[in-house]
């Protein structure tokens, strides 16, 4: 049966005979949602610029093995510290390592930590915030008091202690930063859920017999995509900065593994020398990444708003 039906369908779609069905008056209305979101995003110029920069950075960093001009940690002690040249675009550090190559390899760690922390803390924070806001009552009380606790605990001190105890590997840094970071998005999601919960369309979902889980997943969370997208981008940015801070202070990523943070820390010793510019290289990398991530977040928020400009 399939055999006989298939050619007929194929024939009808490829026929050049004018189709009897009238042309659709509003083709824009027929576009699937994903397409509309994509188009809106592409119209947001800064977001596109941000995405291009981020992609370029990500490709350069994660492809550093092939792209970087010198292998990771190739030392040339005889060369020593060099000013930028055609052989070493950003110069070399005191150990004779090519600074551009180091920057790219270090970016792997910084970006990976940023993205992993953002995803992990967003998933946890969104789930907790949604439960707190939707369930209300004592569950809400308990969860919110816990997040209050996190607010008053000095993050850097906790980081230092936790990394001392667990050992400063990228995985533990991700876990500890996520453990500290989920409260921010949990608060945002909870407050949004509190306002959405009383909306009539949530009541309407109950009226058609939807379960609590379905209401949260199908009706509440989609209405939070914009908020969550923005928060993911903020979380990526703040995670990169926090990782850099811990590494800068010396209890984060440890040499010989490098991240933008411990590159900053090493370059800090060069202030006052002719190589002080090395401070700007990882600094700018962090700045540009964080800005680009924020632009993308901004674009995502606009793109997900169904009532946004068509």
């Amino acid at each position, binding site marked *: 049966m399939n055999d006989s039906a298939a050619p007929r369908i194929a024939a009808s779609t490829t026929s050049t005979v004018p189709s009897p069905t009238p042309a*659709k008056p*509003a083709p824009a*209305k*027929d576009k*699937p*949602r994903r397409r509309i979101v994509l188009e809106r995003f592409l119209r947001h110029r800064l977001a596109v610029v941000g995405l291009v920069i981020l992609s370029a950075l990500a490709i350069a960093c994660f492809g550093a093995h092939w792209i970087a001009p010198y292998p990771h940690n190739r030392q040339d002690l005889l060369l020593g510290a060099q000013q930028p040249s055609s052989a070493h675009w950003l110069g070399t550090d005191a150990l004779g390592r090519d600074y551009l190559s180091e920057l790219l390899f270090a970016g792997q760690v910084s970006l990976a930590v940023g993205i992993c922390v953002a995803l992990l803390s967003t998933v946890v924070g969104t789930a907790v915030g949604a439960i707190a806001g939707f369930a*209300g009552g004592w569950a809400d009380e308990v969860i919110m008091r816990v997040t209050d606790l996190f607010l008053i605990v000095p993050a850097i001190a906790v980081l230092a202690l936790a990394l001392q105890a667990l050992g400063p590997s990228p995985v533990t840094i991700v876990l500890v930063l996520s453990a500290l970071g989920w409260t921010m998005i949990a608060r945002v999601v909870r407050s949004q859920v509190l306002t959405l919960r009383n*909306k*009539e*369309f949530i*009541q*309407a*979902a*109950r*009226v*058609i*017999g*939807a*379960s609590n889980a*379905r209401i949260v997943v*199908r*009706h509440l969370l*989609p*209405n939070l*995509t914009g908020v969550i997208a923005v928060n993911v981008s903020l979380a990526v940015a703040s995670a990169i900065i926090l990782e850099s801070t811990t590494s800068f202070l010396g209890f984060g990523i440890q040499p010989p593994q490098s991240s933008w943070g411990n590159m900053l820390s090493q370059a800090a010793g060069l202030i006052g020398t002719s190589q002080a510019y090395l401070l700007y290289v990882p600094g700018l990398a962090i700045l540009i990444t964080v800005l680009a991530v924020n632009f993308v977040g901004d674009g995502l928020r606009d793109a997900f708003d*169904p*009532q946004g400009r068509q």
Partner: protein
Amino acid sequence: MTSDTTPVLSVRDLTVTYRTDSGPVTAVERLSFDVAPGETLGIVGESGSGKSAATMAIMGLLPRNATAEGSVLFRGRELLDLSDREMRPIRGKQLAVIFQDALAALNPMMTVGAQVAEAVSVHDASRGSQALRERTVELLDLVGIASPRDRVDQYPHELSGGMRQRVMIAMGIANDPALLIADEPTTALDVTVQAQVLDVIERVQERTHTSVLLITHDLGVVAGIADRVMVMYCGRKLEESPVDSLFHHPAHPYTTGLLGALPRIDRRAERLVQIPGQPPLPSERPTGCPFQPRCPHVVPSVCGDVDAPPLAIDATHTTACVRFHEIESVKR
């Protein structure tokens, strides 16, 4: 389509109380009524008369600070005793609600098709996505939405008010409910669109023999499609009767006042007659008949009787006015 005449919905002594910071507030007080199979019962009352609180109590969707007492018997089951989990298979399947503000009641992030489809699939997950889509298109077509195949994929904000209300109706009737509660379904609409939407409800009702509980403050709407009417004031039922009887022989002074306040095309009037005063605040309600402070016929010693039973004028027409016969004799 059984010839069963036992009521689909039987409400007895329903009392809804809200706990507020300034003490308990009674939104609905000892309300009793029945809805027969296939019947349309209109509930008329002004804002704050307890219409919506009664609906939400029936659906089991009162806010946390409200409690419902009494009995709500739906197809032989006591709804007030059911847990939220036990109510779920009933909501939307046998007991559906159409809300007043369709734009607020539709999820802005979902296409209308997806929402109608959800109303079906929540209770019956057996359909494949293609069959579900066909059923959705069929439902949209049934409620009079033109080119439903294009509309399925649109978002609520892309539709007009009337269209959105039709989508709400489509969601309401998706599972052929035994009772459809329409909570001010036409209030947010233009007059011409109102008529169309009411027409849709009537047509659907003819097809499916659904009972309809029509909540409104618009007597014109009631006159149009209801079989019987119940007049509510301050959470109480003041009068209940077939539509014609109510309009021609209103038995409660409040109903008389409401009808007198209607603009009439066949009578010239400089001013519309209004009922003097305001509905009393819950804390200031008199004992006995709540309409006393505004009633032209009030006799406090008689009207203050708390336990006065409703007065049956005939088999179908009852009034809560204890002075009905005296007032009637004065009129003649």
